[in-house]
Structure formats: structure tokens, C-alpha cells
């Protein structure tokens, strides 16, 4: 009797699951076509156990419970499929099922434990409540029910059998019905499929994949207006979200009390793809925007019905969320995709952003300056300017920071170091246009492409071996995003290049006289976007400076708030992102924050009470072993003559 019950239940559940899955797939299919092959399904095991686990393992507790719960469940269900689905009813297999369900039960128990106040005072606030609070109970019910029913004991009292059957029924409903209806367990299927059909396949080949994908503007591609404008595999990706809130915990905008929570954003997109309201969202809201006031459907414009524009404009594109997400969801692509539509079809970027975009269009720099002025800081340094007839080894591209008196100090220090190492280099001079990085993050793909094409055309007239920059945004743009427009260059950040010079002995440095406690702040566009965390540290070490690491550092460093045009869109929050970052530094007692980016320098120096902020190049230049008197002038504040 019981055996037949389980068999019937199994097939019923399988049927319901398949129907539910099919219906869910229809929702994904509302998205745009994207390349895929069925054979990609075979990649799942490796991607699951290597790539995904790599992220999950950062939190051992949840990694272990997940292995137990999911592993137990998968094993149990597979065994049920064989033993009951195929009606073998073998006692041996039942024992195996018992073991699997026991493992699952224990896993589910610890999942439950984490969500109660028993072991910690409070479950982490990043976790969602609602039906996610139900999940441990469903899982416990399923495992317990299955355990009891498959226990190879002949006598099971009727009442217990009924209870067990009910438990199993409830648990199966979560697994089978829940997936199709968008319950929490849909993450299992969507997550695995997302691994297979991930929009950035390169990620699984150990390649950096941080460049935004170009829009075909001629074909009137203007970004994401409605959920169905996403590619189908992006929609699938959103469905994979487990609402673990790791992105939320990493997000600087969320921490600053700005109206952005990447977790909610992904959930809102799930609401959009499956039609509904955000009323059932049971996690942290966007600051200042009550939950339950927004709704969406696949063919309805996302902004503002589903997501407010200010939510999108608060993002610094720091990729901390992407870095943390165990389901490998690409938040930044989604956010920039939606920004693109706002900028290209409504021209509605807030605050100072439109002015900046206009300046870029009209002057190819962000503040409407004369491009000749970009290298005024180098006038007295006797630096070559590249021209088509003067080939050089290294082309120095200064970027937007060159107009900023503060960052000119860094650039002057860098020049001093290059000269000391006898590097054959030249600056780009008036040929340099803004790279378009900020324009692109602000969604202005048209202006970005215009600038990229201009720069590439200029580069093509010049002869150089590689490009050097002290600006990680320039680095990212030129190195990772220009190739899509035919610009292939070797581009190096000054920290990387200087580390090479130190390593090969070209640059001789003495021990630093700096005695204050020092920490290093990783620029997002250097660390997460370009995977460079070692060179800056190696350089500091080479001059005898010890880096006291902040709690969040390296690939998991906290953003300064300067990326993605966020300082321009300037969405109000409770505090400023750089204040949080400086608090990080102060909490470890740092008196000097070493930086490697003009943006970070400006943001961190914008904090009133703070440690001193010094670029790596400045720290190094101060330890230069002066072999010749060829280099002068670092101490001169600035030579820029007011226009």
C-alpha cells in the first residue's frame, strides 16, 4: 500500500514538476534569443562543483549545510526514482534512501537552526523571510516523511504512517509544485540551468569577463526597457537567485542607505518576468521605498512601475554583488542595461550626469575643458608627447584625473619613477579623448562608442608597444572594452608596470621613511574588474611598507563610491560611501590609505576627518634612489596655469 502511495506520489510529483518547469520555461522564453547549445548541459557538474562551490565555500557553514541538504535530497530523490518509480521496492535501496534522507534531514536542520535565534542572536538581516522561512520546514518535512515511510520496518502505526505521508506530501509539494510556481526551490533547477547557459560563458574558463557587451545602435538596440528585453538566459539567471543576500551585504550603496538593494533588484526582475507585485518580497527593502508598491510584467516598462530610476542610478558598478553571488548572477549587466534604456530613450540620467555627457559629446572630456590642458601638469617635466612619427615603448594615457590638481601629483610622481627606470615613454597629448568609461556606465552607449572609435582611430596612427595608465577605469575600458571595437592593446596599470620594473631591477627603491600605519584600498576597477590585487601590495612591500588589511580587501574590497558615474547621479542616502570606507580604514587604526586610482583618491579625500590618502606612485617616488639629478620638481604643487 505504502509502496504504491510513494510510487504514485513520485510520478505525480514528477509530472507536476515537468509541467511547472515547462511553464517557467515559457517565462524565460519571453526573453530575447541568445546563443545556446544543448550540450552545455554537460558542463553543469564541473561548474557546480568548482565554480559555484568556489563562491559558496567562502561561507563554510552554509557550504556544509548545503552539501548535506542538497546532496541528501538529490540522492534520496534519485533512489526513490529507481526504487519506487520503477517499482523495485528493494529493501537494500530503502536503506540507502534512509541514509540519504538522514543526511538531508541533518542539513535541513542546520538550515533551520541558522534562521532561528538559537545559535546567533539574530539571523543575518540579509536573509529573506516569507516563503524562504518556510523552506527549512518543508525540507525537514520531506526528509522526515520519506525517512519514516521508507524505513524498512514492517510495523508502522497507522497514525504515524498518515502523519509521515502528510509530511512527505507537504515536502513534495515544495519541491514539485513550488518550482513551477516560483517557490524557493526553483533555484535548484534554474540555478543548474543558469550554470549551463550563463550569459558570460568565459567566466567558467578562468577568464576575466567584466566588459559590458556593446549595443548595436544602428539596429536600434537601446537597452532594457521591459523584462522581455533581457536575453532569455539572463531571465533564467534572475530565477536562480536564492535570496541569500550576499550581494546586499556587499553592496556599498545599500550600506550607505541609498535606495538600492541588489537582491531586491533581482527579485523585482523575477516579479517582472513572472508578472506580479513585489508585495511578497520578504527581505530588506530599498531604503525609503516601501515594499508592495511596485508591480511588473514581461512586456511592461520596468521603470518606474517595477523599479524606481533612483535605484538604478545609485549603483557604483563596483561588481561586489557579482563577486559574492553564489548563483553567479550578473547584476551590473542588468543595471547598466536598464540605465542604457533610460539614457538613450529618455535622456533622464539625474543630477549632474547629463551635463557630463554633454561635455563628453562636445569636448571629449568630462568638464568641458580644453584637451590641450590635459597634460599641462607635465610641461615642466620634459616629457615627450607622442606623435605619428615618434614611436615609443610606453604610451602614457592619463585619463580624466589629469585635469585634477590632486591627481596631477600622482601623475608627476609616476613620471618621476618612469624616468628613473629609464623607460622610453610619451604622453598622449591633445590626441587623447576621454575613454568613455563614465558615459558607458551611465548608459550612454552612443557617446561611449563615439569616443571609443575616436580613440582607437588615434591609437592607430601611433606606434607604441603598450599603454600605461594610472587610472583603473582607463585600464578597464581600453583593455577589456575596446577590443569589441577593434582596439587591441596591451594595457597596464601603473601598479602592474612598476612592479615589473622593480622585479627586473630597472627601478631601484630604498626603504620608505613612512612610519605611519598603512592600509591599501583596492580600486574595484583594478581588483574585481582586472584581477590585480598583488602588484600594489608587492610594491608597497618592496619599499618596506606593511599593508594592514582592512576587513574587506582584495577582490572583496569595498567600493569608494566613485564608479559608474554614481558621484554625478548622486542619489541621496543616509551617509556617503567613502565615509564607510574611511571608517573601515580607521577601524584598523590606519593613518595612511594607499590608493591606486584618481577616483578613489577624490572620493576618499572628500571625507573630512580621515587618514592621509596617498597613491602608490607617490609613496614609491618618495623612496626613489636618486641616481642622477635628471628628475626634478615633484614637490612643486602644480604648474597648471589657470586658464
Amino acid at each position: 500500500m505504502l509502496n504504491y502511495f510513494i510510487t504514485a506520489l513520485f510520478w505525480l510529483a514528477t509530472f507536476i514538476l515537468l509541467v511547472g518547469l515547462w511553464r517557467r520555461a515559457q517565462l524565460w522564453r519571453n526573453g530575447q534569443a541568445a546563443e545556446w547549445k544543448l550540450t552545455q548541459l554537460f558542463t553543469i557538474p564541473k561548474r557546480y562543483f568548482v565554480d559555484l562551490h568556489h563562491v559558496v565555500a567562502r561561507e563554510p557553514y552554509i557550504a556544509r549545510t548545503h552539501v548535506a541538504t542538497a546532496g541528501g535530497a538529490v540522492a534520496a530523490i534519485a533512489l526513490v526514482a529507481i526504487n519506487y518509480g520503477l517499482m523495485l521496492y528493494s529493501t537494500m535501496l530503502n536503506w540507502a534512501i534512509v541514509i540519504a534522507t538522514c543526511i538531508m534531514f541533518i542539513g535541513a536542520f542546520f538550515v533551520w537552526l541558522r534562521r532561528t535565534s538559537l545559535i546567533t542572536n539574530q539571523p543575518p538581516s540579509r536573509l529573506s523571510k516569507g516563503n524562504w522561512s518556510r523552506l527549512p520546514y518543508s525540507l525537514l518535512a520531506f526528509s522526515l516523511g520519506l525517512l519514516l515511510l521508507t524505513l524498512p520496518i514492517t510495523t508502522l502505526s497507522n497514525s504515524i504512517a498518515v502523519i509521515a505521508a502528510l509530511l512527505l506530501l507537504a515536502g513534495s509539494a515544495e519541491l514539485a509544485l513550488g518550482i513551477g510556481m516560483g517557490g524557493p526551490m526553483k533555484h535548484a533547477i534554474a540555478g543548474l540551468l543558469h550554470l549551463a547557459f550563463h550569459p558570460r560563458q568565459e567566466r567558467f574558463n578562468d577568464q576575466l569577463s567584466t566588459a559590458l557587451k556593446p549595443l548595436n545602435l544602428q539596429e536600434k538596440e537601446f537597452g532594457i526597457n521591459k523584462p522581455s528585453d533581457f536575453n532569455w538566459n539572463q531571465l533564467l539567471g534572475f530565477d536562480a537567485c536564492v535570496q541569500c543576500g550576499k550581494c546586499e551585504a556587499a553592496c556599498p550603496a545599500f550600506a550607505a542607505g541609498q535606495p538600492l538593494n541588489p537582491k531586491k533588484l533581482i527579485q523585482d526582475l523575477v516579479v517582472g518576468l513572472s508578472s506580479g507585485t513585489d508585495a511578497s518580497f520578504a527581505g530588506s527593502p530599498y531604503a525609503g521605498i516601501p515594499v508592495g508598491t511596485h508591480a511588473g510584467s514581461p512586456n511592461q516598462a520596468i521603470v518606474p512601475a517595477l523599479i524606481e530610476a533612483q535605484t538604478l542610478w545609485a549603483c557604483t558598478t563596483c561588481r561586489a554583488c557579482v563577486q559574492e553571488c553564489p548563483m553567479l548572477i550578473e547584476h551590473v549587466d542588468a543595471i547598466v542595461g536598464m540605465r542604457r534604456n533610460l539614457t538613450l530613450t529618455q535622456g533622464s540620467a539625474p543630477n549632474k550626469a547629463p551635463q557630463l555627457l554633454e561635455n563628453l559629446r562636445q569636448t571629449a572630456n568630462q568638464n568641458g575643458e580644453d584637451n590641450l590642458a590635459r597634460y599641462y601638469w607635465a610641461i615642466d617635466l620634459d616629457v615627450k608627447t607622442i606623435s605619428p612619427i615618434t614611436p615609443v615603448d610606453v604610451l602614457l594615457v592619463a585619463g580624466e584625473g589629469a585635469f585634477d590638481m590632486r591627481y596631477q601629483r600622482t601623475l608627476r610622481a609616476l613620471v618621476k619613477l618612469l624616468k628613473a627606470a629609464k623607460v622610453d615613454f610619451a604622453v598622449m597629448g591633445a590626441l587623447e579623448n576621454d575613454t568613455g568609461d563614465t558615459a558607458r556606465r551611465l548608459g550612454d552607449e552612443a557617446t561611449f562608442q563615439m569616443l571609443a572609435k575616436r580613440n582607437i582611430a588615434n591609437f592607430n596612427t601611433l606606434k607604441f608597444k603598450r599603454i600605461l595608465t594610472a587610472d583603473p577605469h582607463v585600464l578597464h575600458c581600453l583593455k577589456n572594452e575596446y577590443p569589441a571595437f577593434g582596439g587591441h592593446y596591451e594595457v597596464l596599470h601603473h601598479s602592474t608596470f612598476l612592479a615589473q620594473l622593480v622585479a627586473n631591477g630597472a627601478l631601484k627603491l630604498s626603504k620608505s621613511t613612512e612610519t605611519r600605519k598603512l592600509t591599501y584600498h583596492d580600486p574595484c576597477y583594478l581588483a574585481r574588474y582586472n584581477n590585480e590585487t598583488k602588484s600594489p601590495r608587492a610594491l608597497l612591500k618592496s619599499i618596506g611598507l606593511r599593508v594592514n588589511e582592512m576587513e574587506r580587501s582584495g577582490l572583496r574590497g569595498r567600493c569608494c563610491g566613485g564608479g559608474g558615474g554614481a558621484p554625478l547621479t548622486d542619489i541621496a542616502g543616509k551617509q556617503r560611501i567613502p565615509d564607510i570606507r574611511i571608517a573601515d580604514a580607521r577601524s584598523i587604526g590606519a593613518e595612511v590609505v594607499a590608493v591606486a586610482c584618481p577616483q578613489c583618491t577624490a572620493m576618499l579625500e572628500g571625507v573630512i576627518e580621515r587618514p592621509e590618502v596617498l597613491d602608490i606612485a607617490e609613496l614609491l617616488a618618495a623612496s626613489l634612489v636618486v641616481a642622477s639629478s635628471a628628475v626634478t620638481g615633484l614637490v612643486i604643487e602644480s604648474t597648471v596655469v589657470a586658464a
Partner: protein
Amino acid sequence: MTTRINPHRQAQVSADDLKREPATIKRIVLSKAQIAVEAHPAKWLRTLSKPKARLLVIAHSDRGAVDDHALQAIAAAAILADAETAVVALILGELNDNLINESLKQAGADEVLVLPSLDFQVFQPDIELSAILSMIESLKPSRIFMPDNLIGDGSLGRRLIANKQLTAATHVIEIDANHVASAQTGGSLLAISELPEVILLSPNTVESELPFTGKATRIEAPKIIIENSQNTVTYQDLGMQGSKAENIALEDADFIVSAGNGVQNLDTLANLANALSASIGASRVVTDGGRLPRSKQVGATGKTVTASTYMAIGISGAVQHLQGIKDCRHVIAINKDASAPIIKRADLSIIGDAEEVMQALIAEITKAKVGAP
């Protein structure tokens, strides 16, 4: 920036000054009144017995006074007039006699005509045009000068030019006996021509401080019969609105008193703003702290302001803040730190405690206002 020591200090020694070592006296004296008084005796009166020609200057008064810009237009005419040419100032709107007449003299006007009914506050372009047309008819000036301003003269001048098809130069930023020049193409070119019939002058193109004075004889304006009907049919003036400083948008304000982190007491600042009829601005630290609304923030991520006077009180002058005031003509800083970046930008810097200087300034203003007529 360097500290300027007044080389003429001896002329106004006070007992206080004598006690100090000259080199340490960093007080500068910017009193124009002083200069004027001393220069006056040297001024000669320009007199004309029988003028053969006239230069006509047309300008509106603003609340009874003739502003600097209009005086510059008069001075331009006076400088360019030869010994046989009279400078006639036609003032549209009321004139508060005594003081103003003195300033017209100083600007070199020989004769002054006033049409009190043509106040700039009333929009009556057709009436104004026909009035000045008939004045021109009777005075037959060889050239007409007007300030190119926004209180009606710029517009009236253009109506005149269009109506009579006169040769003209507008937005004139350079003038001498042989040519006029105006900026073109957003300021990247200078366009030059010989003197036309009508000249609309930009502000500050002329040094209105003259070595001579005019007589500024008030002459009775001929009764002009104005065709009233046309104007009232076409235009109906519904009145002026709002000029309270605190209601003016920052971008539009002409005088801003701005608070930085160094201002402890915003009430004092508000009192000062009130005394100066100024609008209130702030640095980001102040708006971030919620002490003033975000709409008051001046700078790269706040408002870009164009006030002629910007008083930065307790503001360090970070680049992001300075970006917002790059178009301000007069920046006055009050800061306790002489090495703050704002000092480099400011035209006048007072080193001292914000609260104390503000209090003193409020007291001085109150005194000055009681003394003023």
C-alpha cells in the same frame, strides 16, 4: 596669494596703526570713497558753450537710481564726445534727485532728461519705443549709447535698431574712438567694426571714473504724446513678482552667503544673509549633515551659481566646491585657516573666526543702514 600692504597707509594713520611695525600691518584699505574724495579736487568741469552735436545715452533707472552699468554708458559717451558734442542722458523711470544727479555729473553727463512714467518695472515696450523715437526725433543725436542689460535697455535698444534699421553693435565689450568689438561664437572670437549708430554696451567695458565731470543740467523733457492704445492691446502687464532673497533660486541669486563646515551657528548666517538681502548657499558637508536642505548645496554635485558676490564662510574650498562658483565675480572668504584653498580663489579673504566676523559684519551693516538715507 600675497598679502598686500597698503602703500598709502601713511595718509590714513590711526593711533592704532602707529603702534605697529609697518611690515606686520596687513590691513588693507579698499575704500573707494577715500580715493574719490582725494581725487575730486583734481577733476575739472567739462563745459560746452554751443554744442554742435549730441550723443544720447538712454537707460532705465532702477528704483530711482542709475546703476553702474548705465553710468558706464554715460561715461563712454563722455569720453568719446569732442569739445563740441554734448552728452545727453535720457533716463527712463524716476530719479531720486540729489545723490543720483551727482553720480550723473561724475559720469560726465552734460544734460539730463527724465521720463518718469517709463519705469522699467512696467512692461510697455511700444510706448517706450515711441517715446524714445520722438526724443530722438527732437534731439537728433549723432550716436546712441545704451547699457545692454536685462532691465529693459537691451531689449528697447534692439527694438529701436530694428524699427529704424540703424547700424548697431550689441554686447559691446570693447570700445574706443575708432571701433567697437563684441564677443562672437561663445567668446572664442572678437568681432570688430567701426562705430555704428547705436551701441549697446556690456557691463564693465568702460572705466566710469573720469578726470572731469559734466554739468548734468536737468532739462525739461518735451511733452511727448504717446500713443497708448497700441501697447495695451498687445501687451498687458500683470505685475512683478517675488524678490525676497530667500525665495530666489541659487542659480539666479546675485548675492550668496554660503555656509561651510566652519559655521557653527546657522542663525547668525541667516541674519547676515538677511542684512545683505542675500540668498543662502552651503557646502556639501553642511547639506549632508542635514543642517541645510540639499537644494542649497553649491558645487560639482550641487548648484552652479553665477552670483556677482559669493561669500564663502567657513568653507575650505575643495575643488568640487570651487567648480560651482567658477563664474562668480567677487568671492569673499571668511576662514580661520589662511592656507585653505578658498583663499587662493577669493578676491578678499578675512582670516578669523566665522561667528565673530559675521556678528561684527551684521553690526556694521546695521550701523551703515541707519546712517544711510
